[in-house]
């Protein structure tokens, strides 16, 4: 059942669907009004990442770097050393793979205040296919010291995450999505770095998700509830640092953890949960997500099913293992 403690922060205004990248674009432009030190960089994708919203309002503080992601990241680092607050955007694949060394050495190693907000993560970006589908970005960012890794589930959480990232002094990686997803939280929701949200309560299994898959996991948890199978559903936008206490408490209660992510099962949220539990509170963990395969072209709904992390897959996994 829905966790009574957080009922007041759940969106009750119907079936609104907004992409997290849209919320990013809007929030960034709002923050830009209040804080003149914010500068935004993009790599010829501002219409897709939505940094163009900021760019239109504050053209003198918007720097298109062209299709040159490595340069963009190190330029952002240089801007940060001068007291600017750079938000650097491109697709997740390019931010974390093409510019990996730059994120690591120009930004993370000197702990510079650069916010890397990358969109189009996961296979659910759809038709563009494998070359543009980030399935390793969380794994890569997690393994680099000094970077916060945040994956908001909906438009509201995105707004709160961007605001939190603005207040935080240091490197941040925010994972955003192309596709529209249901608004889960209302504006009363307060996001905290290092804290997850327990949306549903139950003792048969723990389902942990971050980002785009949270609304899918929520759908699955509700269907399971209708069949009398109550689960803990945890939304973990803060992948690094993880909300360890929340995860351990739930795992100890249910003994069965299922993680869901639009990302490889190697190195992402699922792996982070495994790392935590195997050391601090061993429990069985089944990782749903992309099973060590490259992505492919298709509609988001087809891909989620094909790659085994749709609502049916979650329900089946819970039933097969309780």
């Amino acid at each position, binding site marked *: 059942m829905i966790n009574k403690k957080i009922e007041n922060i759940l969106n009750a205004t119907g079936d609104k669907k907004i992409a997290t990248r849209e919320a990013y674009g809007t929030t960034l432009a709002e923050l830009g009004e209040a804080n003149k030190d914010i500068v935004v960089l993009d790599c010829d994708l501002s219409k897709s990442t939505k940094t163009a919203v900021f760019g239109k309002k504050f053209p003198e503080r918007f720097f298109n*770097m062209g299709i040159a992601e*490595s*340069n963009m990241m*190190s330029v952002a680092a*240089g801007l940060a*050393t*001068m007291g*600017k607050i750079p938000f650097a955007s491109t697709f997740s694949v390019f931010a974390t793979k093409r510019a990996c060394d730059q994120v690591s050495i120009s930004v993370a*190693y*000197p702990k510079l205040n650069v916010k890397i907000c990358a969109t189009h993560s996961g296979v659910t970006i759809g038709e563009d296919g494998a070359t543009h589908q980030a399935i390793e970005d969380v794994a890569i960012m997690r393994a680099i010291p000094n970077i916060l890794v945040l994956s908001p589930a909906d438009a509201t959480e995105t707004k709160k995450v961007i605001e939190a990232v603005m207040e935080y002094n240091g490197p941040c990686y925010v994972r955003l999505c192309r596709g529209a997803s249901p608004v889960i939280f209302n504006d009363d929701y307060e996001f905290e770095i290092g804290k997850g949200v327990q949306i549903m309560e139950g003792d048969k299994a723990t389902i942990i998700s971050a980002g785009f898959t949270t609304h899918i996991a929520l759908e699955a948890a509700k269907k399971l509830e209708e069949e009398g199978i109550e689960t803990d559903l945890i939304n973990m936008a803060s992948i690094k640092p993880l909300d360890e206490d929340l995860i351990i408490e739930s795992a100890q209660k249910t003994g069965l953890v299922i993680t869901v992510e639009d990302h490889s099962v190697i190195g992402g949220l699922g792996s982070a949960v495994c790392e935590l539990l195997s050391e601090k509170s061993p429990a069985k963990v089944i990782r749903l997500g992309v099973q060590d395969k490259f992505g492919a072209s298709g509609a988001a709904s087809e891909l989620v099913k094909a790659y085994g992390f749709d609502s049916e897959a979650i329900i089946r996994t819970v039933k097969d293992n309780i």
Partner: protein
Amino acid sequence: MDLKSKEMLEQKAKDIRVDIIEMLCAAGSGHPGGSLSMADMFSYFYFSGILNIDPKDPGKKDRDRVVLSKGHACPVLYAALAEKGYFDKEELKTLRKYGSMLQGHPDMNKTPGVDISTGSLGQGLSCAVGMALAAKLDNSGVKVFAVLGDGECDEGQIWEAAMSARHYGLDNLIAIVDLNGLQIDGFTKDVMDSTILAEKWRSFGWKTYEIDGHDLDVIDDTVKKAISLKGSPVCIVANTTKGKGVTFMENACDWHGNAPSEEEKDKAICEICNIDVS
């Protein structure tokens, strides 16, 4: 440049060269060749008065910035900073030791006077672009100098940065390319030919000068010209000798990344100070 100033800078360059040799010998590892080739340039930067810096206030807000993009040459930077008074010269002996404020490649969080951490080639120039962009935005008058290796210009990111600097009209950005003609595996012309490097910079829209990187008068004239130029970034391609100042290190690939032994150190210092040991 008047004679007195020039003599002072020549002496500082010698002091820097001695510091480089001593710190590398104490460390047992590091990069003499590409540090020695820049000793005259760094003497000029830190002792001619051309830079708006203050060793007593390393974090001074509108100071000029120096980015050693070829970060492995940090001995020349550390030597210049120590001689200038950013920290005690005694610290130079601790280069590359665990816990040292002088890391194997520049660390902005450990060493006062280091404006950005570098070491992975090809990134520093981009950082310098970011600094120059911020300075333009703020109209602060801050000048940014980036020191690159010629081998480093193999890296694609250098050219991304070059393109963006011209695009944004960063005339407050001056790149110095240490054209010593060597990289690790051999002469640059044999490993990856960059012998028409100056033309490449020109074609990217940078006002480009080619100078003798050991001639202090020419360095002075050119840097002043570069600073007064408006509208485009400037590249000063400095023809240098890798290992300059120590004959057995000059033009030798082996001295890219090997530290001198005690005996080699003594011999090198004698040469630098022109002490006749015959």
